[in-house]
């Protein structure tokens, strides 16, 4: 049947995207294992909703969006489950002042984990996953201007955290 064939084709395309989905999930949750759990949940949801995917849309953006929504559901319900998920507060409590006081140079991963999650997702989608601004904005369900400003703030904060301590930039 042609519909089954096309479903199988999409399934194989999803398999091919798994490495990128795993990478994106690493920026959402604390441990690689939890990230893979998120990917599994997202993939299972995607298969249930294949009829909602339009072949003119990018499959990767669509899957990132499902993954991101699954993660939001998890964050909302985290109070009733194990503390699997990266606390948003960890990022949001890091103000400008404490960033400037940061003495050790952080690893990129640790620095990214400290960003507020809105900025972290924007940076992850554009800089790591290489999505165009409009695609990243679509994944996050925000206007492109919002995406741009989150990305700019996230980058600025990252640059400040990653700057070598002997640097003379303020």
């Amino acid at each position, binding site marked *: 049947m042609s519909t089954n064939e096309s479903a199988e084709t999409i399934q194989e395309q999803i*398999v091919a995207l*798994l*490495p990128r989905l795993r990478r994106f999930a690493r920026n959402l949750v604390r441990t690689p294992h939890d990230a893979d759990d998120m990917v*599994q*949940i997202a993939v299972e949801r995607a298969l249930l909703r294949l009829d909602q995917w339009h072949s003119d849309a990018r499959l990767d953006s669509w899957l990132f969006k499902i993954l991101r929504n699954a993660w939001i559901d998890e964050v909302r319900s985290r109070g009733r489950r194990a503390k699997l998920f990266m606390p948003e507060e960890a990022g949001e409590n890091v103000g400008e002042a404490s960033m400037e006081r940061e003495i050790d140079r952080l690893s990129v991963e640790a620095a990214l984990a400290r960003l507020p999650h809105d900025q972290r997702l924007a940076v992850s989608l554009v*800089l*790591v996953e290489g999505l165009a601004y409009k695609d990243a904005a679509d994944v996050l369900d925000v206007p492109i201007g919002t995406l741009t400003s989150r990305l700019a703030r996230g980058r600025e904060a990252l640059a400040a955290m990653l700057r070598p301590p002997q640097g003379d930039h303020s």
Partner: protein
Amino acid sequence: MSVSDETLMAYADGEVDAATRASIEAAMRDDPEIRRRIAEHRALRETVQGAFAAVLDEPVPQRLIDAARGHKAPPLGNVVDLARARRAAAGEAPGRRRSWQPVAMAASVLVGVALGYLGWHNSSPWVKTNSSGELVAGAGLAEALSNQLSEDRSPGRVAITGLSFRAKTGDYCRTFSSTGTPASSGLACREGDGWKIKVLAQSPNATSNSSNFRQAASADEPAVRTAVEESIDGEPLDRAGEVAARQGGWAAAPRR
């Protein structure tokens, strides 16, 4: 020329239109500061990208490949095909098609295991078919779903109830898991005067030496979790919410 940092960032990312690009490139020729800022944006992009590049080279866990192909990976539970379980519970021959695909064959074996374990017949404490042929909770499970609070850890329970919530349909739903081996779990929703089984999953490799572990795992079965997330309206019930719902006989709230 003064250029906003967002514009320089967009230029570095290849996100500006031709006119903006031309004016920035003109400005770059005269202004080393602009060149430095653009180089910084590009360097940061490379640094961040490089930090996560290795993830792409990691082997992808088989369970994710299976999930993408629509197969259920055994370690995370097998979803029982409700239509088939219903036929089996009703004592019907399993299906009429002659040319099942290998996947369907494998699934039928799994269902068979589940049916064998749960003892699917109409006197089962677990599941049975009602007069409409729908899969519903058997007496023992229905008793637990109707009366047991999720925090109840008393020994001798037939089933462990996990979390309770109101679905978008207005119905009350509860997750449950068995106290036996192999462990199985699922989601049931109160419809009319019975508990309709929405999802049934089993974890062949899960040990249930400690029923507390099963309580923790009940809602974590991916198929059950997905079903909860798809249907939940708001937050799950706390203890007081469960008590109130129980007092009301778990009667559905008006549809929002």
